[in-house]
């Protein structure tokens, strides 16, 4: 029973944590695309900074993935 609970916790945890990551990256992309539509000449800079911010948001979403992997491989 405990083994099954560990796997269940890992799956639920990783899945729920990625919701926040998805929403965060979507908001970032929305802001970047709106800026690009207003001012097409700064498209390159906006793209670079958007990818940088996506790396931060994805880092946070992957913290939960690390905990889930720890759960699966230690149980």
């Amino acid at each position, binding site marked *: 029973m405990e083994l099954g609970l560990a796997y269940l916790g890992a799956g639920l945890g990783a899945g729920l944590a990625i919701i926040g990551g998805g929403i965060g990256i979507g908001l970032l992309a929305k802001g970047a695309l709106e800026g690009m539509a207003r001012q097409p000449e700064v498209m390159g800079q906006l793209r670079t900074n958007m*990818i*940088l911010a996506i*790396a931060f948001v*994805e*880092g946070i979403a*992957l*913290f939960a*993935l*690390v905990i889930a992997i720890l759960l699966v491989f230690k149980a």
Partner: protein
Amino acid sequence: MYRFMGIFQTAIAASSHGESEKPGDVVVHHLTDHVIDWGLIGHINDTFLSSKLFGVFDMRITRWVVMMWIAVILCLVIFIPIAIKIRRAATRGEVSSSRWVALWEVMIEYIKQEVIEPNFGDKTAKVSPYFLTVFFFILFCNIVGLIPGMSSATGNLAVTGALATLTLVEMIAIGFMKHGPLWIITGIVPHGLPKPIYLVMWPIELVSLFMKPVVLMIRLFANMLAGHIMIIVFIMLIIMFESFFVAMGAIPGVIFVDMLELLVAFVQAYVFTMLSAIFVASCMESH
């Protein structure tokens, strides 16, 4: 790292011997470290390094150590001739006109202008060797991991932990050198606060000082590990289902994930270097 033919051979050999190798075992085999036990390195492992250093540290040469050596050798072989060429052209008073030098100079100048210069100002020439070394070492470690048959040396907590520990040591050392031995008590909290808020803020700031390199470590490790797990899982899908239709869908998926991993390799090296520079610079100036 996706040992395409290697996974095929492992699965086929295991099934022909009558035992079934679970997919999880093959995934774990490719993600963990293995001591090299063949050839000259295996001989060195068995004789010189068989006893633990100080009785605690196991110093045998494993696969990740060899990957890190490959990244270091790439760094040396690429950058020392470039430095010689630039210096030789600078003594003649002109800029080197070779395209190979220009390729690496673009990246070096980008890092210096975007990462080091806004944070350090006039001390750029003194600190840029360290940050450039960290950036190119992490970059080459990540890229070497994408070649089939090799594994990424930054995909474990030990290597990224060592890099983050370097950042932590730098932060504390620069704080002590710039602000004196009482820096820990007075330097990490912003100035001009009343006493009660000071007592509340100080433990928070101390924990945050130690948390910043830990977060750096986990970010780099998780990004590299997640990318490699996705690649391995896609290939294992083909072997588990043993049908051509799954392969038709999985191979484009693997190619797309591999391209994404290339982008993530560059971005994560850049983010690590940029955050290291920001943290060290924030400890250098008084708040």
